[in-house]
């Protein structure tokens, strides 16, 4: 308001000066033309004075206007300069702020990039040991630590077990087990409370742990619990014991961020490991079950086949043996009635021997197709063999011209055996031996008995043609034979009989040199009825 009044007064003054000047100038100009009466005191000097006054007034007006104009401009310029300065300050402030923000973002970006790198590395594998190794390597390389140890929480033992270390000797690592009962320990406290800490001063107690011994500087060790939402995973210890870099809250923050990811990775790896083990175990069990099933199936097929064969054999035996018996008896009668020189004698003998052979085939099939039923009696095995030798001495030994050697162990006690079946088995093996020594340069049968621990071992060796290695396993299989006349059931039946006695039968053979059958019978027999 005041300013306006002052401005108006100033304006009025200028206008007054202009009007006065115009009036005076008009008077001087127009006084002679319009004969304006001139006062008496109006002299030339007065007129000059008026003229000078007009000039002064005009100059005054001009000066005032000019001055006003200049002043106005100066003020304007001054204002503008102030504005510019203000703007400059503001810009400076903003630029500083921007710089700060940029730095902060850059730090954050660095942290996130590092974290991402580490997470990426961790996620490359699910193998626990490898995951732990990558974690430690990543921490030390990206977050600039010199050493690191990961402890895994052992719930059963209630302690933290060092699992893996970076730049830590294995022998040293093994000594680092941290019991959770040691409540004084800063490390244990940190784990229990789930708070990451920079360990400022190590207590004497902590110093006793070998790993910490060489940490002399304060603020060079960080302890970070590794926990997920619902599980205590373990603990991470990192230090800068070599570079002696003082650790700050920033270090603590970045490693804490990282700890969450580490815990999850460890959890995942542990889960994966458990699952892998479980899968492996399951696979093993499945494999085993499949194998058992296959075996059972095989056995079932075998036993079904055997049962069918057994039934068939029983019927066949009965139906064949009756007519066989009639033929046999008829032949016997004929054989008795006709004289030696009769031509028919030869053919009757053929009938008798072939009937006997036929009967043997039937008997073999029947014996093979049913489980051996054994009737145990106390038997002197040496006497039993001797009986067989006596029989062979008047039959096969003469036929093939064989020398027999016996070596009996008198220490063998009486065995509980099915005398007839063991006799059948041994006779079968001995007769086989004789058969395969036919036309061999040396024809020697060696029978040996021996007491070995709780077993009686019978060895029957020949100097026959021998068995090729590819056949040694097959010889106990049913229907396997290299003889022209034979069902291939003899050794299979022998094996069944020996096994029914809880014994074992094995064969050793060298082609061209001979074969040895080794029969092991337990002295205290446990009859195997399976």
């Amino acid at each position: 308001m005041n300013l306006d009044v002052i401005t108006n007064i100033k304006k009025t003054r200028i206008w007054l000066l202009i009007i006065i000047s115009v009036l005076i100038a008009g008077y001087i100009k127009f006084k002679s033309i319009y004969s304006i009466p001139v006062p008496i005191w109006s002299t030339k000097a007065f007129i000059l004075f008026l003229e000078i006054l007009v000039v002064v007034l005009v100059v005054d007006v001009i000066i005032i206007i000019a001055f006003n104009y200049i002043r106005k401009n100066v003020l304007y310029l001054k204002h503008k300069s102030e504005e510019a300065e203000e703007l400059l300050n503001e810009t400076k402030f903003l630029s500083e702020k921007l710089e700060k923000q940029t730095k902060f973002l850059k730090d954050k970006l660095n942290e996130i990039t590092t974290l991402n790198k580490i997470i990426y590395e961790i996620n490359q594998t699910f193998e626990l040991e490898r995951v732990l190794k990558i974690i430690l390597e990543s921490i030390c390389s990206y977050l600039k630590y010199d050493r690191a140890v990961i402890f895994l929480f052992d719930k059963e033992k209630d302690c933290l077990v060092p699992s893996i270390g970076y730049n830590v000797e294995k022998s040293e690592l093994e000594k680092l087990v941290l019991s959770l009962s040691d409540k004084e320990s800063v490390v244990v406290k940190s784990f229990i409370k789930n708070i990451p800490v920079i360990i400022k001063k190590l207590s004497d107690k902590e110093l006793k742990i070998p790993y910490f011994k060489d940490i002399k500087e304060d603020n060079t060790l960080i302890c970070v619990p590794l926990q997920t939402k619902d599980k205590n995973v373990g603990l991470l210890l990192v230090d800068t014991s070599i570079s002696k870099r003082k650790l700050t809250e920033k270090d603590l923050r970045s490693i804490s961020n990282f700890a969450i990811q580490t815990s999850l990775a460890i959890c995942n790896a542990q889960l994966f490991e458990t699952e892998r083990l479980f899968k492996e175990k399951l696979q093993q069990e499945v494999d085993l079950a499949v194998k058992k099933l296959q075996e059972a199936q095989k056995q079932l097929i075998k036993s079904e086949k055997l049962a069918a064969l057994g039934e068939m054999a029983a019927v066949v035996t009965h139906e064949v043996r009756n007519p066989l018996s009639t033929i046999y008896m008829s032949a016997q009668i004929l054989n008795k009635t006709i004289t030696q020189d009769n031509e028919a004698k030869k053919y009757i003998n053929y009938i008798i021997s072939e009937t006997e052979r036929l009967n043997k085939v039937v008997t073999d099939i029947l014996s093979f197709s049913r489980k051996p039923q054994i009737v145990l009696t106390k038997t002197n095995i040496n006497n039993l063999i001797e009986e067989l030798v006596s029989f062979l001495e008047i039959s096969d030994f003469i036929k093939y011209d064989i020398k027999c050697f016996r070596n009996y162990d008198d220490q063998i006690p009486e065995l509980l055996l099915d005398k007839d079946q063991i006799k059948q088995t041994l006779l079968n093996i001995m007769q086989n031996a004789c058969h395969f020594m036919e036309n061999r340069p040396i024809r020697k049968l060696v029978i040996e008995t021996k007491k070995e621990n709780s077993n009686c071992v019978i060895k029957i060796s020949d100097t026959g043609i021998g068995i090729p290695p590819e056949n040694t396993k097959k010889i106990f299989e049913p229907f396997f034979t290299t003889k022209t006349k034979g069902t291939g059931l003899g050794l299979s039946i022998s094996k069944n009989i020996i096994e029914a006695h809880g014994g074992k039968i094995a064969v050793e053979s060298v082609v061209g040199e001979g074969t040895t059958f080794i029969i092991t019978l337990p002295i205290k027999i446990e009859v195997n009825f399976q």
Partner: protein
Amino acid sequence: MKKILIVEDEELMLDIIKDTLGKKYEIKGFTLGKQALEYLQKEQPDLVILDIKLPDITGLELLEKIRKFLPKVPIMMCTAYDSFKTDYQIWSANVADYIVKPIVLEELETKIKKIIGE
């Protein structure tokens, strides 16, 4: 002459046995268990030879029936099954002996002789 009853469904075999042993013993042969039982109601032989498998009854069932009214007459079983040897353990109390087919005539004669004599 001692009497032997043979129950055997194979007629030819029965015939051969009759021919072979007929000179030494009085042989009576039947092919059915029923016929044998009827005969035994009237006559008492010195030895009975039973086939294990008969068309109308098993030899062992027949054995039990005979034992009910003739507890002491010696009975010999005749079988085409090897497994009878095992069963014999169970039946041995009731049975004098057994013979396995195909029959060796000499063996049969020896066994009969052993049980009832000439």
